[in-house]
């Protein structure tokens, strides 16, 4: 029997046919190793377990449809056919489908993309941009129907001055990620909006999948204006959430962040505004208090003068007769002092009035600028009262002063002379004579009366018993006019 001689290619074809007939499609479980992507896009790798290794090939058309990436060490279940690669004569698996083992396909894809973008630094805190001071023009990327858009608009309607530009997109299904990424790119371009909200209501991982696509993540990362994401419920984290500048737990929350920012700014302005008015209000209170103090000083000044006059009166009531003339002379000396006082008071009054008028004008000016009617009223009343008091006191002070001057005048030597008393001096001297014993007979004297004077020659003196007030020096008050 002559053995059959095969051509190589022929034998390979026969083996392949046998393999195909014997095995058909096989499910093989193992771990990936030596994964390579060829220039053509085909994937080549080994499938290994403890006891063996098989070469595998997966054509680009199928491999590109995988959501996750084939990486070394990944435990997988392959659906494949067996064949001998004729060129090299090696057995290989032609892979049709890869299913990750122990972890869901989407979960795996999620973890893989997350790890990749994280490694690129796309989630880094320092990449996060702060929200604008005034997020007033809101770009909204979401479905025009559904709960999310309603929730967002409801919250946003709380702030009156806000413009929303909705770029309607599909948020799930094939191609949704492309629409979302495109909308983000479009709204983010120059000066259309201040912030972009990317939102979607809750759903399964499958439903939310578009937000886990690299394309969306890259669009968010590249967006020139800050992006707030609000996808699914609190517990859902998508890749979009990681890349976004601000991650909101839900669509409602995303809108809240915007509105609360505006409300916070409003509060800051209000607080500062209140602070301004409050502070200037305090200042006005202080000015008012100062005016009142000034008015009070004007009140006490003439009173002090009056007190001085009373003290003088009391003194005059208690002096001994012998001192009367001294007192009269002393009081007379004080008259010009009182005049100066009056002049001083007048000058003071004029100066104060001027100063007061200046302060009052200032106050009115302040009031004019102050918009709070409550403050204005309070200060106006206070100043009017102060002015009234001040004006009421001026004539009274003058009256008291005049009364005081009359008192002093009454004590002047002229008045004393008018009442019939006289002053006697030696001729040519000015010191009044007080002691009769000091006068010798034959001395020339000069007696000053109310009208004119008498010159006389002394005949002698009569001792001290004849003193005018000898009997009751201490009891008799000196005569005086009130």
């Amino acid at each position: 029997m002559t053995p059959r001689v095969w051509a190589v290619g022929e034998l390979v074809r026969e083996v392949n046919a046998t393999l195909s007939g014997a095995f058909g499609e096989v499910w093989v479980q193992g771990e990936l190793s030596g994964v390579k992507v060829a220039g053509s896009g085909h994937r080549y790798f080994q499938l290994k377990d403890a006891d063996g290794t098989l070469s595998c090939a997966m054509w680009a058309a199928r491999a590109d449809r995988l959501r996750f990436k084939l990486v070394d060490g990944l435990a997988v279940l392959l659906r494949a056919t067996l064949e001998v690669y004729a060129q090299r004569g090696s057995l290989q698996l032609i892979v049709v489908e890869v299913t990750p083992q122990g972890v869901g396909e989407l979960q795996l894809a999620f973890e893989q993309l997350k790890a990749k973008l994280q490694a690129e630094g796309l989630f880094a805190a320092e990449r996060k941009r702060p929200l604008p001071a005034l997020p007033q023009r809101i770009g909204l990327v979401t479905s025009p129907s559904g709960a999310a858009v309603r929730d967002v608009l409801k919250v946003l309607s709380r702030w009156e001055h806000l413009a929303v530009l909705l770029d309607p997109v599909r948020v799930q299904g094939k191609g949704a990620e492309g629409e979302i990424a495109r909308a983000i790119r479009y709204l983010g371009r120059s000066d259309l909006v201040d912030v972009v909200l990317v939102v979607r209501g809750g759903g399964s991982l499958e439903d939310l999948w578009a937000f886990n696509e690299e394309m969306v993540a890259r669009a968010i990362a590249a967006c020139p204006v800050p992006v707030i994401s609000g996808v699914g419920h609190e517990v859902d984290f998508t890749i979009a959430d990681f890349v976004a500048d601000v991650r909101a737990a839900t669509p409602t929350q995303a809108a809240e962040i915007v509105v609360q920012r505006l409300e916070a700014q409003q509060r800051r302005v209000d607080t500062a505004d209140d602070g301004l008015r409050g502070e200037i209000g305090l200042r006005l209170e202080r000015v008012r208090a100062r005016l009142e103090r000034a008015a009070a000083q004007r009140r006490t000044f003439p009173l002090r003068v009056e007190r001085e006059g009373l003290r003088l009166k009391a003194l005059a009531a208690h002096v001994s007769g012998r001192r009367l003339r001294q007192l009269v002379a002393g009081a007379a000396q004080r008259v010009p002092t009182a005049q100066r006082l009056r002049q001083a008071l007048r000058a003071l009054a004029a100066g104060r009035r001027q100063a007061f008028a200046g302060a009052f004008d200032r106050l009115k000016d302040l009031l004019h600028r102050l918009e709070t009617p409550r403050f204005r009223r309070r200060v106006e009343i206070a100043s009017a009262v102060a002015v009234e008091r001040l004006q009421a006191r001026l004539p009274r002070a003058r009256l008291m002063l005049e009364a005081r001057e009359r008192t002093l005048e009454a004590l002047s030597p002229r008045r004393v002379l008018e009442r019939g008393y006289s002053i006697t001096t030696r001729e040519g001297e000015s010191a009044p004579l007080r002691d009769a014993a000091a006068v010798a007979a034959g001395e020339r004297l000069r007696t000053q009366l109310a009208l004119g004077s008498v010159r006389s020659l002394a005949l002698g003196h009569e001792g001290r018993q004849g003193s005018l007030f000898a009997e009751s020096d201490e009891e008799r008050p000196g005569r005086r006019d009130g």
Partner: protein
Amino acid sequence: MAKETFEEALKELEEVVKQLEDQSVGLEEALKLFDRGMKLAKRCRTQLEGVERRVEQLLAEADAGEQPPTAPFAPEEG
């Protein structure tokens, strides 16, 4: 845009209030600060309320720098 100056104006406003709280500042100076503060507060408010309320839906994209066509938008009830 005026947006940048909002933050600046607000910060200055808060600074003015702080200065005004300083009791050693004289009346004349206080008056000036108050004046300045009121102007800043007004500017802040103008900006804070500078946008007219509207909700629009993008109908098509336009070239950069051009306003894209839009239509008013109201979500369906339900």
